[in-house]
């Protein structure tokens, strides 16, 4: 090896250690998905805690897969066809087992638009989620094209082919418990692998990343979090944010939702307009979460009009 070859090799090693550079050098539209093993047979693809952008290609979401004796169970498929394809390649690199089934936790586009890469396999969701994807899937995909651009090429809304029937499934040595909850959307599927103690909480749980509320019912969501908090688990995979080994992200998400709920009601009764609510200071325990101000503003748009309506009495015609 001459001096030049040595330098090249050294350079490559250095690059491999730097994820952003590596992504930049890996060619366009490479999500650089690297499965992280969080428990036996159980892998998570951790997204960023950013908003959709042309830099991140929509990889702002956590997906995962469980390698069972009877094939791989995939939990959510990411924001685009390209993500789904790259996820499938990452699964194939991790195991020889075929994909047994795919689960869609809820209708949000960053969680199911990779379905196109799994069209040859059964794709399962709760009935409500299946119906909502059927109704709104195209519009949701269209909006992501606008937000992340060419990363979306070839992506269409592929709806689930099967409706979740049993709430417990024994598959290849893993006992999976399906919890059909709601509140983040009209139907949110959490998956507890009782064999490994891993809880895939879907977007019912965010971690150090401000929760999103475009289809939220805050009171139902808080009730669902109470259900999750009552489960016995060892590893918690939130929909967005870092994997945890305790209940802290459940507590954090619930505390924020509770504060949001009370603040919007009080503000509406105090006469604050929507843009005034958007500019309220955030409590310090939430202000440091990723996208805190942006998501708080979005939540005001989603939720505040109903609070204002409730706070304004019907007037008498004079």
């Amino acid at each position, binding site marked *: 090896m001459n001096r030049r070859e040595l330098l090249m090799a050294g350079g490559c090693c250095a690059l491999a250690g730097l994820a952003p550079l590596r992504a930049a050098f890996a060619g366009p539209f490479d999500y650089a998905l690297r499965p992280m093993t969080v428990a036996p047979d159980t892998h998570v693809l951790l997204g960023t805690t950013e*908003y959709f952008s042309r830099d991140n290609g929509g990889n702002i979401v956590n997906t995962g897969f469980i390698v069972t004796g009877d094939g791989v169970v995939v939990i959510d498929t990411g924001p685009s066809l390209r993500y789904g394809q790259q996820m499938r390649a990452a699964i194939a690199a991790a195991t020889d087992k075929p994909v047994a089934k795919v689960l869609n936790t809820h209708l949000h586009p960053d969680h199911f638009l990779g379905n196109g890469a799994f069209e040859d396999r059964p794709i399962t969701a709760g009935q409500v989620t299946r119906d909502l994807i059927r*109704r709104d899937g195209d519009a949701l995909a269209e*909006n992501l094209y*606008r937000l992340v651009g060419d990363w979306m090429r070839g992506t269409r809304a592929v709806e689930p082919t099967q409706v979740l029937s049993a709430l417990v499934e024994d598959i290849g040595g893993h006992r999976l418990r399906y919890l059909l909850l709601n509140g983040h959307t009209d139907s949110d599927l959490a998956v507890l692998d009782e064999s490994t103690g891993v809880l895939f909480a879907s977007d019912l749980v965010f971690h150090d990343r401000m929760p999103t509320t*475009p289809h939220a019912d805050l009171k139902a969501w808080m009730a669902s979090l109470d259900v999750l908090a009552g489960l016995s688990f060892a590893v918690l995979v939130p929909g967005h944010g870092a994997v945890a080994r305790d209940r802290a992200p459940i507590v954090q998400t619930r505390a924020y939702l509770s504060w949001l709920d009370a*603040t919007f009601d*009080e*503000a509406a*009764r*105090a*006469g*604050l*307009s*929507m*843009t*005034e609510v*958007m*500019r*309220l*200071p955030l*409590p*310090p325990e939430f202000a440091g979460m990723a996208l805190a*101000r*942006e998501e708080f*503003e*979005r939540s*005001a*748009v989603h939720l505040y*009009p109903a609070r*204002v*309506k409730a*706070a*304004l*009495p*019907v*007037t*008498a*015609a*004079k």
Partner: protein
Amino acid sequence: MRRLLAAGLLAALAAPVPALAQAVAGDPLASVMWSTVHATVLGGGPVVFDDARVRVFTPIRVEDNHRVPVSIQVEGLADVREVVVLADHNPIPRAVTYAPAGGTAPFLELSMKLNEATPIRAAVKTADGVWHVGGLRVDAAGGGCAAPRPATASAEWQDDLNKVRARAWRRPAGGVRLEVRVVHPMDTGLVENIPTFHVEALTIAQAGRTLAVLEPTAASAENPVFAIDLPNAAADADITVTGRDTDGNGIRARIPAPDTVYGLLAGRRS
């Protein structure tokens, strides 16, 4: 030869483009539609771009094009005759015209529809005929005016057309904060074959004295909510709202004098 071509291109670029598609010197938003909306919506007249005294606020991300909250705060301008809220790139640029009775217009908020990414402006006309203009640019997906109202659009208007929910709060520094919500579909006329149908006038008064007149268009959101500060309103008297929609249906409401102070308790603020 190549140099000649380049010179020709430069000459073409430097040639004046039609006035209607030209950003105006001094427009901080460099909008190609400004000269058009200035002429057609505001009727021309002298303009001062003044974001310090005419402050427009919208959220960072516009997600629902059918309901984009926009607030206008006007400070340090006397003899205000008229405030126009408009979006340069909307097929219906003007969302509302607000005429305050007392010469000051400290605060107005409404939600409006946006058909695409656009500058949003407030133009405040003072007694000397000058438009003081503030604004910002918002990014947005398409379709707020020309796309159907969302599948979840309320059918509230079918039973409760022009019904008013409203409340007044006493402002600690004097005057009244009023919020008025009118049940109305606010159809733009640009969707399917549904004709234009919107609230077109609301007069806010107290004991027969006009405090403000609002003239919304269909670019205001469905079931519009207006929040407005009325510095000259008495805090111990009822307020009336009277108006009509474009079909001539009447709007009439009496809002009891405020029993509460506007604003959150300090403890909730942090």
